């Protein structure tokens, strides 16, 4: 997917990282604020356990199940066709950096929202959300930089195999998160 994004050969890494990270931080900070206005920590922790175990098991096992929550929307090509490179990068960064706008193939993204809702107070929620947004945006941009430097030579089957490996790892991480959330409920529930 990112291999198709034409950002030019002389992409300045810092500019690209900033174009993805800045919108991600802003959007996630707002999400962290809104998610912690109401006292929903106990419910969010319970949902984190259920979500982590369900998607962790189906992603690790490779069995079919409910699709990962998210949107199927993709950036229309006319938004980026025939636009200057800097403008294209800003559009991609604003839409892909935060991660909410486009498709999420792995269930881990939904867990991030639940963890932010589990913070329990606004200050911690905003700090946690900001950090998660920054990490997501930077990682998204890093993947794009990787793909823009190495011309994509992977075929479809290779892409599917890589995706399956990421899915399994994502599932294992979800299970670990479910375990940690369970203990949080036991101690503080």
């Amino acid at each position, binding site marked *: *997917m*990112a*291999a198709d994004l034409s950002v030019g050969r002389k992409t300045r890494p810092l500019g690209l990282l900033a174009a993805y990270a800045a919108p991600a931080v802003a959007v996630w900070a707002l999400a962290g604020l809104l998610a912690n206005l109401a006292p929903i920590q106990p419910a969010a922790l319970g949902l984190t356990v259920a979500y982590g*175990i369900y998607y*962790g*098991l189906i992603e*690790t*096992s490779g069995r079919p199940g409910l699709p990962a929550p998210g949107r199927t929307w993709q950036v229309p090509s006319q938004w980026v066709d025939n636009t200057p490179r800097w403008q294209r990068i800003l559009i991609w960064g604003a839409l892909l950096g935060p*991660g909410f706008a486009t498709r*999420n*193939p*792995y269930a*881990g*993204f939904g*867990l*991030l929202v639940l*963890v*932010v809702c*589990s*913070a*329990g107070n606004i200050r*911690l929620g905003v700090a*946690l959300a900001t*950090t*998660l947004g920054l*990490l*997501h945006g*930077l*990682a*998204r941009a*890093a*993947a794009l930089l*990787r793909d823009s430097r190495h011309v994509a030579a992977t075929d*479809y089957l290779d*892409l*599917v*195999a890589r*995706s*399956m*490996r*990421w899915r*399994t790892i*994502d*599932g*294992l*991480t*979800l*299970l*670990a*998160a*479910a*375990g*940690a959330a*369970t*203990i*949080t*409920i*036991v*101690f*503080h529930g």
Partner: protein
Amino acid sequence: MAILGWREGIPLPLVKVALATCALSAGLTAGWLASGGLAVLAATAGVVAVMNGYSKAYSP
């Protein structure tokens, strides 16, 4: 095994069950050691955020 580069010898479902058990146990243990604080959950979420952002490019 195509999933994790496993070659042969141990049945795949057994490997998956073992991995899933280890992951869940790791989360439980780390959470317990952190006295149930949110630190472990937050750290795990940080790892997920990086993985999720970086791996989307591999989605066909």
